[in-house]
């Protein structure tokens, strides 16, 4: 067999036929191996990082990134306000405890706020009313509710039923229901929040209402601001029966 052998630089023998190679060749081989190993290492690290769940920001366009920045900025402003509110609450509780006072007022206020936010108690406020006429599927209504939440709706009702975690408007067009309550072909969706932001988000060009009107031709969706409206509490028990608090 006429095979050319390239042995290691230190002249180890391969089957007794290896030859000693010149020092310059050996150095060149070592440098090549080092370079290949280095490149291999960089690529391996890159691959591992890419697979470690890092956000796929590389796949976003400049427009998407700008939209993402706007969303993150708004979200962070809300979180900052929440932190400030909780820090104030903590300070108040600490001072009350140091003075030996009870914290009934603070507990009651916190309870009322959480119950209202979760839908466990009635709420009142300004917002919008959307009158829906015609046949539309549950998927379409859920898309509308998702957009309302995205626009900052703090409470929502569909045909008078409070929408809370786990409540779904389901059914085909003409057979909608929510919480075992049948919905007719004409009903109202109401939301509490900024009337301007809610209306603007829903009715913008190419927005959810435009999409729904294209998907469900013949349906009418009319949005109007409401100065004051009151929503009932949910009838649903939201305390988990299968899940337990994690200590």
């Amino acid at each position: 067999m006429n095979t050319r052998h390239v042995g290691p630089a230190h002249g180890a023998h391969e089957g007794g036929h290896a030859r000693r190679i010149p020092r310059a060749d050996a150095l060149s081989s070592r440098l090549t191996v080092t370079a290949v190993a280095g490149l291999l290492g960089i690529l391996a690290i890159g691959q591992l990082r890419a697979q470690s769940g890092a956000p796929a920001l590389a796949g976003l366009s400049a427009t998407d990134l700008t939209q993402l920045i706007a969303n993150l900025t708004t979200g962070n402003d809300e979180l900052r306000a929440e932190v400030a509110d909780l820090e104030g609450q903590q300070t108040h509780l600490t001072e009350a405890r140091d003075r030996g006072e009870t914290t009934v007022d603070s507990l009651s206020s916190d309870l009322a706020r959480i119950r209202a936010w979760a839908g466990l108690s009635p709420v009142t406020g300004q917002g919008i009313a959307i009158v829906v006429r015609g046949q539309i599927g549950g998927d379409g209504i859920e898309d509308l509710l998702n957009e309302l939440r995205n626009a900052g709706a703090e409470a929502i009702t569909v045909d008078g039923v409070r929408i809370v975690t786990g409540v779904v408007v389901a059914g085909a067009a003409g057979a909608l229901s929510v919480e075992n309550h049948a919905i007719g072909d004409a009903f109202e969706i109401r939301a509490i929040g900024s009337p301007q932001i809610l209306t603007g988000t829903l009715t913008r060009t190419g927005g959810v209402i435009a999409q729904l009107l294209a998907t469900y031709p013949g349906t009418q969706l009319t949005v109007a601001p409401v100065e004051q409206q009151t929503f009932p509490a949910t009838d649903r028990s939201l305390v988990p029966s299968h899940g337990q608090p994690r200590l």
Partner: protein
Amino acid sequence: MTAIVVWLRALPKIQVTFAVALLVLGFLITAQVTGEKPRAQYSTQERAPLIQTVLDLQTQQEAFKARILELRRQIGDLEAQDPGAAESLRQLYADLEDARLAAGLIAISGPGLAFRLEDGTTGAGVDALVSAQDVRILLRELWLAGAEAIDINGERVASTSAVIDIGGSILVNSAYLAPPYEIRAIGPPDLYDRLRSSVAFVDFVQGRIERNGMSLSVAPLASVDLDAYAGTVNLRYASPAASGPP
């Protein structure tokens, strides 16, 4: 065969090392290139500072959320240590704990399942990418099947949570989530059986997932751990009302 073995043995070690290294190199380059598809790559110069801004905002968001969870825990501890400890106060505290549990402000564990929703194979086009609508359908089906609590890639779904598209990925609670999406739910032990008996769920799997080469895997679990919702519960426009509408 013997000739091949002899030939391989006769090869110098350095050549074998090179061959293996180049093979791995080729594999890694292929994996790197295919891993970036089908979500498009953009190379305009203005993107670098935008990406850095997003990363900074995400870091800030994580810090805020961690701080919120820590403050809520500390406030809960302070409320529990109230010096009065009268029956009325104990009842108030118990009501508060129930409300927090109902609102998703407390981490919980329980039986349930975990879904993993992934994009289709490379080259299948935009229809093979998981969209916010796909995630919302899955959430809806889980709620209808009796799920009590759900999270998406660790983001707890609350009454105000929206799931929206952003450039082929999604935003949940203003958090940017990239695929694959892991959707975990706590519910009755037969949650998956209930889900499978839903016509809408079967249509979703057959008509959307399978048709477009996407992947949806499920694992029923004896115990699922869900973190608490770490977003805001402040109300700006709504306020508690004395009673509901007449």
